[in-house]
């Protein structure tokens, strides 16, 4: 397992700074998950989950990203939002735990 934090600062209109965080998470013996995440008041404002994994149906990832918008940036909250999707979908190379770790890993959450 290998995580790497790379916080970046960007600006939006009116020069209000927002924090964009990135993480690369390698599932041991599995696939690579990349997270790009925007936080606002410790809530997820935007998230992009990419990687070389497989999940069927494929739109599951877009649905997870939508569901996570507004979610408190805490491991338990993230896992609770993510895990129901993994019960319904067929997934290979990663699971709900790995995805939660990948997301939380952008800021080393406990």
């Amino acid at each position: 397992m290998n995580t790497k934090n790379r916080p970046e600062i960007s600006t939006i209109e009116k020069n209000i700074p927002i924090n964009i965080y990135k993480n690369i998470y390698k599932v041991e013996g599995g696939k690579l998950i990349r997270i790009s995440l925007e936080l606002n008041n410790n809530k997820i404002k935007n998230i992009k989950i990419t990687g070389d994994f497989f999940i069927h149906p494929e739109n599951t990832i877009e649905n997870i990203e939508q569901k996570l918008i507004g979610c408190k940036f805490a491991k338990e909250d993230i896992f609770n939002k993510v895990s129901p999707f993994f019960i319904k979908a067929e997934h290979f190379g990663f699971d709900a735990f790995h995805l939660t770790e990948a997301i939380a890993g952008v800021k080393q959450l406990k």
Partner: protein
Amino acid sequence: MKFRLIIDSNNSAFMNMGIDESIMHHVGTGKSLPTLRLYSWKPSAVSIGYFQSLEEEVDFDACEKLGVDVVRRITGGGAVFHDKELTYSFIISQSAEIMPKQILDCYKKICRGIIEGLAIIGLKATFVPLNDIVCDGKKISGNAQTRREGCVLQHGTILLDVDVDKMFSILKVPDEKIKDKMIQNVKERVTSLKHILGREVYFDEVCKAMISGFEQGLVIKFSPGKLSPSEEKFAIELAKEKYSTREWNFKR
């Protein structure tokens, strides 16, 4: 059950992905027979997995410089440099009796065709879940599957030859600091027919072996065929309006 065989070399990346999707659409609506298509890429191309970010995986400028096409697949998995290889797609209704219901079993079944084909050429290969075929412990074939429109579509590659250094001049690595180590690692883990057999291996030879391999491995019989006018028309539309667009290729 009747099966169609299409041998279709030298299409662009956009057209190759358009043809695969078009066949899937026509098989799904009962207008076409289940199909094995054997093809290659002209020019060479990089395909990225459905969930990958093109910006993160591919050096777009290097591709432009080398004249390499870049396309997003509708299947998951990793980035692939399609250079000296034979690519196949196998498209069949999900309800076909010969297809297992579980995705992993489905991979295993379709990969049996490739393993039998490799055996005809003289290679002993095995399936390694989820989606690899290995020979002497090294990967020689990668495969990816999707299920849409009531169909199973699996496509994959059989490496005729591999140039790992050229591959990494196009693909980005997660961590530049360990790039050399990664390249070394891939050299140790990936092989090709040329490397194993110690001679040049050509598309036509592998094509013939794969046709027999699929017939033996899946216990089916192919009739040679070609795209229907409707399949061709839809493939051209998909190539133009989906697979060659920035909107699709940079969608994640």
